[in-house]
């Protein structure tokens, strides 16, 4: 109890000059409450240890219900819900892409938004400047992003762990600064406006529900392909590299090739998500691709569960939908995200749905 008082008053003093007396008092009381609660839980741990075994039939029903709910969403949802759901679809694709790099291959990438930006900007420039149709510019944007992934990976792969993370971060920032300053091509900080809607034949995709199904199609494609790759020879090679690079190399895995592949495969999905984003928003600007965006995608992967595909989907949905639902708490979103990352690393490094061996290694 005395220890709790010391900790609480210490932290209270720490926040006093920045927050004023009233807020500091609130901090003091809430920290005391949290510490008391924690010690109570620790003392009566057996109450909270409940093992639940879910029969397989319930699991299958749950999956079925979720799929139905997702498919029929435009029928019962209003425009706002459809819009937010399309956005979370785009983020699912992004998080799946980053999961390949960080979760499967174990390479921390802090500049993932750069590939997203390349995809979005390529689509924007090709459709507005060259009047190219969306469906032609999309594969070109995706190729561009994957190519850039390889270009970054070639030099970066000589580095390990945290150094690699910093180089990718620097790369992401450079891309953003270039987009911000190359006025003749990217229109600088004002961004590119009036990106046309995609159309199939004569059918223009411009209603929210149409977008929703288009994004959903790509989400299913992404989940299907990533799952297949994960269970293939390539996926196993990635896992081997993640677990122990030296051992993997000794077993005859061409580590450089597989790491290159991981980087460009991840960038591929980011490029796709970027193209979808540009087609949905009709507008791109450098502000959408900051370091915080990279961190947000990373948070989705980590909170959901590194290396776990359902986990990543859950992470993306949580981080997009939750702040929308809890509108009043929007200002605290990043605060919660930051502390969430720390708590996650300390108490559950494998994420919400991560299984055994899902934790990251350096």
């Amino acid at each position, binding site marked *: 109890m005395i220890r709790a008082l010391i900790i609480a008053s*210490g932290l209270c003093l720490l926040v006093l000059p920045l927050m004023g007396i009233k807020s500091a008092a609130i901090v003091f009381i809430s920290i005391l409450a949290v510490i008391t609660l924690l010690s109570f839980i620790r003392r009566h741990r057996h109450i909270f240890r409940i093992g639940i075994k879910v029969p397989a039939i319930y699991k299958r029903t749950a999956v079925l219900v979720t799929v139905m709910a997702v498919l029929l969403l435009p029928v019962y949802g209003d425009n706002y819900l459809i819009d937010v759901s399309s956005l979370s679809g785009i983020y699912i694709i992004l998080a799946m892409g980053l999961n390949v790099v960080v979760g499967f291959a174990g390479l921390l990438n802090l500049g993932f938004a750069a590939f997203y930006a390349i995809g979005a900007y390529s689509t924007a420039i090709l459709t507005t400047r060259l009047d190219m149709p969306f469906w032609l510019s999309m594969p070109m944007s995706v190729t561009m992003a994957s190519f850039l992934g390889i270009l970054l990976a070639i030099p970066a792969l000589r580095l390990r762990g*945290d150094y690699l993370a910093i180089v990718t971060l620097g790369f992401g920032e450079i891309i953003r600064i270039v987009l911000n300053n190359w006025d003749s091509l990217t229109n600088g900080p004002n961004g590119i406006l009036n990106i046309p809607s995609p159309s199939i034949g004569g059918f223009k995709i411009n209603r929210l529900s149409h977008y929703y199904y288009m994004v959903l199609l790509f989400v299913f494609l992404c989940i299907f392909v990533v799952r297949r790759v994960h269970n293939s020879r390539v996926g196993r090679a990635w896992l081997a590299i993640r677990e122990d690079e030296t051992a993997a190399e000794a077993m005859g895995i061409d580590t450089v090739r597989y790491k290159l592949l991981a980087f460009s495969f991840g960038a591929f999905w980011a490029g796709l998500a970027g193209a979808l984003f540009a087609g949905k928003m009709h507008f791109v600007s450098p502000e959408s691709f900051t370091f915080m965006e990279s961190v947000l995608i990373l948070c989705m992967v980590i909170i959901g569960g590194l290396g776990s595909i359902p986990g990543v989907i859950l992470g993306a949905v949580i981080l997009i939908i939750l702040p929308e639902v809890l509108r009043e708490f929007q200002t605290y979103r990043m605060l919660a995200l930051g502390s969430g*990352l720390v708590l996650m*690393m300390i108490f559950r490094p494998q994420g919400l749905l991560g299984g055994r061996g899902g934790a990251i290694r350096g």
Partner: protein
Amino acid sequence: MFFQQIVNGLTLGGVYALIALGYTMVYGILELINFAHGEIYMLGAYLGIIFLGFFTAIGLTHSNIILALALTFVLSVIFCSAYGFTVEKIAYRPLRNAPRLSPLISAIGVSIFLQNYVMLAQGTTDKVFPHIFGSSGFGLMNARITYIQVFIVATSFVLMIALHLFVVKTKMGKAMRAVAQDKTMASLVGINIDRIISMTFVIGSGLAAIAGLMVAMYYGLVNYFIGYVAGIKAFTAAVLGGIGSIPGAMLGGIVLGLVESFGASYISSEYKDAYAFALLIIILLIKPTGLLGTRSIEK
């Protein structure tokens, strides 16, 4: 023009070097890129403005400005050190034996947290640092040198020399070097590792606080996001000099300051922030050990 850029570069470089010291000391001991270090620097600037505002309100600044400034510095350093100490205790210590990327992600979390905490507590608008030194200065060889620039360069050099002496001459410094070399061995000869690590964070955060305060005085404006860019640049400086090496961080900071100020005036100022990143990538690819670093063996 040329000499002016040298003066500007040295001023910036002194600040970068002070922040870089915190990165390099922590990396030397924990092999952790302390992402939150830039935010501590930002906190230093904010706390400086708050304390100075408080002293102005009680009338101390009018009667004795030197005392008010000195107290502001001392209080900011104490508070920032406490922040550094707390961050280490809460976010890094439980992860001491975790896989190497876990503390890095935790550090990113702390950085986001601190940034938003300051934003929520102090608002999004720029904070103004009161003009104390003004823009008075003197001319030398076609360049204009303000007193605040002299103050920044002098303070950073004195602090760097003091830190160097501390690490080389004192018993605590010796213990620090021992922990950096081999934690297990150091604990076997009776060094309290936890205390040394806390001490490292306290010293590094104190230096960052001084850097933040001086930058607030120099530019006159402070915002809650200054920590991120400054942190990355200081990290670049640390890597440039050879991460883990204390003289390296000093050299790296000054080189980076000069590169930035010359690049901004002779190439393009729009890409000012990109120089640091480009430099960082180039060093990591060509000479990851930096200018003064020693080769470490990958385990």
